[in-house]
């Protein structure tokens, strides 16, 4: 990086100005106060340059396409989370017919043990109980002397 980054305080102030100027209809007085702020500290112009460039980039995103993409991605992820909740209830000893479109979804990636599609695994855990993990499932184990959480 060639120029030193502006301090956090300047960036925060610049962001507050961006909110006032871009997302609201600023009054002439607001504009005037902004110009005053800009000149009041040697680092303010750089902070403003960066922040307003970010604002321009965001404003340049195609709105409909961006909205659909972000919402669609969020939906996909939360439907995976619902699967995960379901798994928490049904994974042990159940016959669970959860098939993912991809070989492994997030739940498996994050779990302590997991199976791929078409794989079943059975094992005994340290408290003596047996676990059968059905195809394409995932499980997290948390033990203590009093309780265990799956």
């Amino acid at each position, binding site marked *: 990086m060639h120029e030193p*980054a502006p301090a956090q305080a300047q*960036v925060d102030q610049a962001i507050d100005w961006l909110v006032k100027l871009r*997302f609201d209809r600023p009054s002439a007085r607001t504009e005037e106060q902004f110009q005053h702020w800009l000149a009041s500290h040697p680092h303010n112009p750089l902070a403003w340059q960066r*922040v307003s460039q*970010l604002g321009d980039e*965001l404003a340049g995103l195609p709105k409909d*396409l*961006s909205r659909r993409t972000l919402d669609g991605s969020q939906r996909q992820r939360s439907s995976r989370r619902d699967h995960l909740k379901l798994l928490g209830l049904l994974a042990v000893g159940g016959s669970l017919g959860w098939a993912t479109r991809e070989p492994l979804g997030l739940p498996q*990636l*994050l779990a302590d043990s997991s199976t791929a599609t078409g794989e079943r695994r059975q094992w005994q855990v340290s408290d003596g109980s047996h676990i059968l993990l059905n195809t394409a499932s995932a499980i997290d184990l948390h033990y203590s002397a009093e309780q265990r959480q799956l």
Partner: protein
Amino acid sequence: MQINDTLKPTEVALLYQAHHSWLRGWLRNRVGCSEHAADLAQDTFVRLLRARQASPLKEPRAYLSSIARGLMIDQFRRRALEHAYQQSLAHLPEAEVPSEEHRLVILDALLRLDRALHQLKPRVRQAFLLAQLDGLSIVQIAQQLEVSRATVERDLAKALGACYRLRYADA
């Protein structure tokens, strides 16, 4: 970034020798593909070289696996977003479909935006998208979300702050 708040390369090399094959195995159990696991293990050590961590690691495997977990989540989020992007592009009338190059620029910006928004509370995310993409005014957003004007302003500033940090993080 200062050099002296990261681990020394020699230290990372030792960690690599001691834990690389363990990490590969750990990842293979999770991603189910040894090539993919090998790539992620490499990426984990690259990340470790840049991580701000001055003192030697006390629990290297826990630390490595937490980096690797983060990488897996990033990848998962990325895949979900790319998939949604392709679907959304398919919905566009032909005249509105951006050029190949522009498509990648937009995707890149959306990936960053998605990561930034993910760190925020749902209300903050919503307020920001209503303002930025739906063009609602602060007053309209305040009404819709049933919060005060000042809260909406704060939410927008918070969201922009998260975008800023990602945008200029490793410039």
